[in-house]
């Protein structure tokens, strides 16, 4: 299911404090049945949120990869087999046919909020 459609159906859900995510680090949050990786690539509070499950290995690990960029595109490299995913869209930069869900994420009053359809499991498990 497309991330945008998911977002329309969902409400903003409070996940953690912004301070729980150190600059240049990522965490994984359990939102309903979904495991959501939340990335904070710089020192600014700008965040990205992707499904945490690496579609190549099915392991719940994307938040434990190394962040960086490819030609200016912010990305996360999976720690298992090192495929990179666009932090903005979840599209795999090494295989455009593969993508993980990307979720809207924002900071309100020092709290991190994401829009995720909590009814669904992570798509890579239910597919």
């Amino acid at each position, binding site marked *: 299911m497309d991330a945008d459609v998911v977002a329309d159906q969902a409400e903003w859900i409070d*996940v*953690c404090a912004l301070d*729980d*995510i*150190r600059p*240049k*680090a990522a*965490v*994984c*949050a*359990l939102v309903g*049945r979904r*495991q959501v990786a*939340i990335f904070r*690539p*710089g020192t600014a509070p700008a965040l990205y949120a992707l499904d945490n*499950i690496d579609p190549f*290995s*099915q*392991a*719940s*690990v994307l938040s*434990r*990869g*190394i*962040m*960086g*960029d*490819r*030609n*200016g595109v*912010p*990305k996360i*490299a999976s*720690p*298992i087999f*090192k495929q*990179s995913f666009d932090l903005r869209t979840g599209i795999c930069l090494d295989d455009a046919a593969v993508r993980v869900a990307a979720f809207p994420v924002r900071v309100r009053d020092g709290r991190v909020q994401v829009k995720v359809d909590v009814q669904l*499991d*992570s798509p890579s*498990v*239910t597919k």
Partner: protein
Amino acid sequence: MNSRRRLVVVGNGMVGHRFVDQLTSGPQSDGWDVTVFCDETRLAYDRVNLSKFFEGQGADGLTLATAEHYAAAGVRVLVGQNAVAVDRAAKVVRSSTGQAVPYDRLVLATGSYPFVPALEGREAAGCFVYRTIADLEAIRAYAADVSVGAVVGGGLLGLEAANALRNLGLETHVVEMAARLMPLQVDEIGGAVLKRRIEALGVGVHTGMATKRILVEEGRVVGLQFADGGQLDTAMVVFSAGIRPRDELGRACGLAIASRAGIVVDQHCRTSDPDIFAIGECASWDGRVYGLVAPGYRMAEIAVEQLGGGGDRHLTTFDMSTKLKLLGVDVASFGDAFGLDAGAHTVSLVDTVAGVYKRLVVSADKQRLLGGILVGDAAAYNQLLAMVQTRTALPAEPDELILPRREGSTRGGGLSPANLPAEALICSCHNVSKGEICEAIATKNLLDVPSVKKCTKAGSGCGSCSTLVGEILKVELKKAGVTVNHGICEHFPHSRQELFHLVRVKRHRTFDEVAEAHGKGAGCEICKPAVASILASLWNEYVLGPDHAGLQDTNDRALANMQRDGTYSVVPRVPGGEITPRQLIVLGEVAERFGLYSKITGAQRVDLFGATLDQLPAIWRQLIAAGFESGHAYGKALRTVKSCVGSTWCRFGVQDSVSFAIRLENRYKGLRSPHKLKAAASGCARECAEAQGKDFGVIATEKGYNLYVCGNGGMKPQHAQLLASDLDEDTVLRYVDRFLMFYVRTADRLERTATWLNKLEGGIEYLRRVVVDDALGIAAELEAEMKNVVDTYQCEWTTTLGDPDKLKMFRTFVNSDAPDPGIVRVPLRQQHRPATVEERQSMVRPAETDRRAQ
């Protein structure tokens, strides 16, 4: 009516295979139905590199042909079937199984067999020849139960066979009837230098010895008796006394046979029957049989051309030049090696200290190089051979060509590849000239050696010209103004070595400083860990410090090894493999308490698998309480120093290898390096710790330790090389300090020590000069840097446990204590393993369906 014609090839050795390969990949392939007789049970393999079978390559690494390849080319191969007769009248080849295969054209590529002198006792168990993989397997099996072996024959192949026996751990002897080793290739002085070098390796060399009979007891070889009455005790004998052409098929069907054996062929490889060709070592041309692969390949190509209706290529006198590495000693002989040309001059260098002999044969008018002999250092072989073949004018002082380049001297060092003429033959296996290589580089925009090899085939035969190909490429690229990008990734235009120097000189302490000063962008999974490793090697700060944590590869970040389901394995350090019973019990208790799968690693440690991220701190706490510390199994760092029991318990140990292994491991533990490092200490020459297979290793001698470096090699296994002998422990530490720091400073990203040494100009000799002789004057600095690393060692588990903030990094979820629901286990031999993706889906799906239904 079928217009296709039938072609039968007898023999699937290197030459037979080359013939079929050329035929089926060329324009002549249409119109031929090809049947090949292959009497070995294996398809064609690389016999030239047969000895690599013993160097870990195994039979697969030697494969030249596969059944799939032949099938795809439409070639029928009769594997394990012997052609026993040719009926020329009926034009049929008959096989040992009674098959009759008709032919329109027949190619005999039956090769040769090893000559075994008619000595009494040669049928006894323990007598072998050195020709096929099956021979090598038989030798290896027999050698497992004996301790001494002798090779009869001190030529090229004999010395290779001796090397094989030595690698199998046997006391090895070489017996040669002539007064010197390799009598066909080297002169008296060369033979003497070679003999000394080989003896220095512990191989017994017996020249001028005619073997009279094989001594046999109870059907097994026990020794050799010589014509002079002397005798040599040996439990096995490998004959390597030359080859004889396998011409019996040709003889039996009435083809013309040369007086000294071999099927007579004309300059187009046709036998006395115009429908039958003979190629390779079974053929005799101009009264000679050629026992080298290059002439065989040429014959194969000519025969293919003839099948296509003729061509202008024909046999010409073959260059019998050879270059080989025998028992680790370079030997080359080329052109008029012995100076037979009237009035020829000689320029020579004899250095029995270094074990080097070089002889150049110069024409009577002193204008040209005619040939030469190189023993101990054959680096200049390809260039010198090219000078002979292209009749290049000699430099004013020809000794420059053989003098070694010395520091601070402008003399010596040979001829630059830039000065070689275009027609210089660079690759003699595939007949590729410098001009062809340069043209390919220019027209096809080749930027690296592998693409040059692929495109021109140069360097893809015996490989001896690879270095020269690389040098030519470098010169050509420079000429074309191509800047070769050797940056580690898009964010840095620098190699790891350059980054190391920049970080060191500018004293950068963080990735951001390095990126700001020398890079661009936000970094990536390649440059971040590389810079993290450099920072760790230089300053040795805690890897999870605020500036460093985000740079670490997953394993370094979790201080454990991520496995395929996202859980981790934990390996505590067990220095030298010595562990108390109590500690063993604790490992078991921890594994039970946390439900971990346990396994002994390949390097004397215990690996506990299946820990989730949040379990790691609790596991470490329990291990640390029992006296363990981090084993750095997760880092590009020193892993283990393996040891045998040495003189503490072993009957044979001559030094206390356990204590020394522990000392080495504790000194270098945690050292961050370009690649993971492993080491070993063996208490005697039996080498139970396999020290020669490690990045560094010591083997005890009566007088101390021999130090070996740069073994392992990973995918392409490589033996370590001897750096220095009979050292006391403190000297070993000093040399290892220097060696490791030099490697850490100069190696490329993820470059193993073996690969690093292969690329190091001057190889082990140069490394020895840097490490042992301190030729660069940097030894003190290297030692000081290592001392800093040793002094600042910390157990990263302990440091992490002491920092509550760091422990937050080990939560599975930032907002919940729930376990990761995606981790699913399957039972395995009283333990368990992660479910595969398929297993997991089949287990998850029913539950999922139920939920949907509700």
